[in-house]
């Protein structure tokens, strides 16, 4: 009978408390502010947190691929495929004093470059999400700043009125005038804050769609490369087990190694599947931020799904590192 993971896999649930608490706080904040007229920063924070997790997850997976392609290269060259060594003799490209080139770059060098590119793309995405959070932050146009403005204005008015020898009106009258002006200015800026955010979210939607598709494509390429390395490592172990000259205890040890390799690969593939799902959810989550700004009662299912994926990634990483 054939078994596979094409059905949804089930895992033992292990949740690191700190990360879970932070996710819970964000989820509560998302639900807690629904219905308020002001901009809620929680969904923006959730987006940033999720993309950070995706960046870490993608980098960790590519680090594995790099390590394994490098190890395989060493093993293959050492086993006699000496012609491959030429690819390691780096040369300087003409006119580039800081450059390096390989006539026939081994796969692990390409993986290293690819890893760098994926990290760059994800870092730019993290930066973008961080800027959205800044623009959505209540601190940008905080009531405290405007209260201070009103207080300063009141103090100035009182000084000037008294200096001119006019019988001073009550503090309350002056305060009301100043507070109203400051409040109007704050309302203007808040409106500007909201309209800037909406404009950014709408106009950047195609760029986010493209970046998410590129991210998903990177995950599929990573999965392919990881699977390729797994094929090599597992076949090598199976060939050892098939060797009739190997002792029973040797076979047992190798068999255990093969089982552990399989278990690890299954977990690694789960991480990559979750990463792919996260990238696929990203455009809709980004779109949801705009919808939530227009209508605060609008639900945020994709943002919550992204957060859920971030939590899954955290758990799977934790399981993988425990295995190490």
């Amino acid at each position, binding site marked *: 009978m054939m078994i596979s993971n094409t059905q949804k896999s089930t895992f033992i649930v292990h949740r690191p408390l700190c990360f879970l608490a932070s996710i819970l706080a964000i989820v509560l904040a998302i639900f807690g502010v629904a219905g308020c007229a002001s901009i809620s920063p929680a969904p923006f924070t959730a987006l940033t947190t999720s993309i950070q997790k995706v960046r870490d997850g993608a980098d960790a997976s590519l680090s594995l691929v790099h390590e394994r392609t490098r190890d395989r290269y060493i093993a293959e060259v050492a086993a006699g495929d000496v012609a491959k060594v030429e690819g390691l003799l780096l040369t300087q490209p003409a006119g580039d004093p800081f450059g390096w080139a390989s006539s026939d*770059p081994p*796969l692990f060098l*390409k993986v290293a*470059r*690819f890893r760098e*590119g994926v990290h*760059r*793309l994800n870092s*730019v*995405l993290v*930066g*973008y999400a961080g*800027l*959205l959070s*800044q*623009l959505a932050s209540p601190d*940008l*146009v905080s009531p405290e*700043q405007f209260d201070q*403005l009103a207080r*300063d*204005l009141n*103090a*100035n*008015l009182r*000084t*000037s009125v008294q*200096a*001119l*020898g006019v019988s001073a009106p009550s503090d309350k009258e002056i305060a009301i005038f100043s507070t109203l002006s400051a409040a109007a200015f704050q309302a203007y*800026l808040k409106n*500007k804050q909201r309209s*800037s955010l909406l404009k*950014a979210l709408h*106009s*950047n939607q195609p*760029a986010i769609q*493209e*970046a998410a*598709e*590129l991210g*998903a*494509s*990177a995950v*599929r*390429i990573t999965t*392919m*490369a990881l*699977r*390729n390395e797994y*094929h*090599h490592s597992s*076949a090598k172990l*199976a*060939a050892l087990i*098939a*060797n*009739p000259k190997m002792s029973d205890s040797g076979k047992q040890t190798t068999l255990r190694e093969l089982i552990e390799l399989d278990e690890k690969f299954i977990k690694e593939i789960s991480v990559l599947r979750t990463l*792919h799902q996260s*990238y696929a959810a990203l455009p809709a989550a980004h779109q949801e931020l705009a919808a939530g700004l227009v209508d605060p009662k609008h639900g945020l299912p994709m943002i919550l799904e992204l957060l859920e994926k971030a939590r899954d990634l955290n758990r799977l990483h934790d399981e993988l590192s425990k295995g190490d």
Partner: protein
Amino acid sequence: MAFEQTQKEKVIESLMAEHRQGQIAEINLRLQDKPDEAEKIWQSNSRLSAEIDILIGQMMDEWIGNAERAIKGLEKISAKLEAAVAEIKKQIHVAQNVVKIIGLLDDAVAIAKKVVKGF
């Protein structure tokens, strides 16, 4: 590009599946104690493996080429966002400066008033 596999990915995937079948056949032959036949399969499978490595490397190179443009686009939109944040902060600073200037002018009025009283 969408969230589904491209044609190229499908081709590599099917080549990898063939390579895997070759590995399984090789192991079966070794288990049947037929090392010579197993070795022949191993050798032709190694050639296929080298081709798969090249194709995976090419896909990575192509991805980097596509990502470069997207990264530049994202950097541009991030710069615009930064400018929007800065613009709002600037307007608050302007308001704070206006209040400060009003304060300074008020002080000047108070001094002038004292001077006028002195005459």
